[in-house]
């Protein structure tokens, strides 16, 4: 059974780097890992997607080790507006499975 796990919550201060890890033990060889951000009363919003090693865009980095059993979303220098729930999403077979989400609180 496909299963994805994440920490329930994290706290950080403005200006710090935040790393959120997602475990996806039975990911298949060709499955991609995607991260989404969700604010209250809104739909999730795409942050970054990767398959292996490291991917970086203008807002985040995604690190995927060689065994691909986990992935880490890295948010550089967070601000108060980054307070949200962050979900990893793995495509298992023909089913997109969201992780349970990590509630990030950024404090001043």
């Amino acid at each position: 059974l496909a299963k994805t796990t994440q920490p329930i919550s994290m706290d950080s201060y403005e200006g710090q780097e935040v790393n959120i890890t997602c475990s996806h033990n039975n990911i298949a060889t060709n499955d991609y890992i995607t991260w989404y951000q969700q604010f209250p009363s809104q739909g999730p919003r795409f942050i970054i997607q990767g398959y292996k090693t490291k991917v970086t865009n203008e807002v985040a980095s995604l690190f995927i080790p060689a065994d691909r059993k986990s992935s880490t979303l890295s948010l550089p220098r967070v601000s108060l507006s980054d307070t949200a729930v962050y979900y990893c999403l793995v495509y298992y077979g023909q089913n997109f499975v969201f992780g349970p989400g990590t509630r990030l609180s950024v404090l001043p």
Partner: protein
Amino acid sequence: NAGVTQTPKFRILKIGQSMTLQCTQDMNHNYMYWYRQDPGMGLKLIYYSVGAGITDKGEVPNGYNVSRSTTEDFPLRLELAAPSQTSVYFCASSYPSGGVGTGELFFGEGSRLTVL
């Protein structure tokens, strides 16, 4: 482009009633999805479609039906509403340019359904 549009945004149903949640996208995406999100929880896939005329069950399909007669529209039908179906429903679409499982999911703003 409007993106993914869902209607209605809010609805209250009585137990046993039926209704259809509408979803339309104007991005010409071939993949469309319906998710539900219970309060304080993550998203669970109800149904998805890889193209017009093709639909398949996700993780939690019981109590729902879908159809995909056009590329743009993917309505979700609730038959015999139950309190357990109280949730926020999100429709999404994608174009897996790199193959199945790739690409960004574009979400609508959600439809909040309460069954009393």
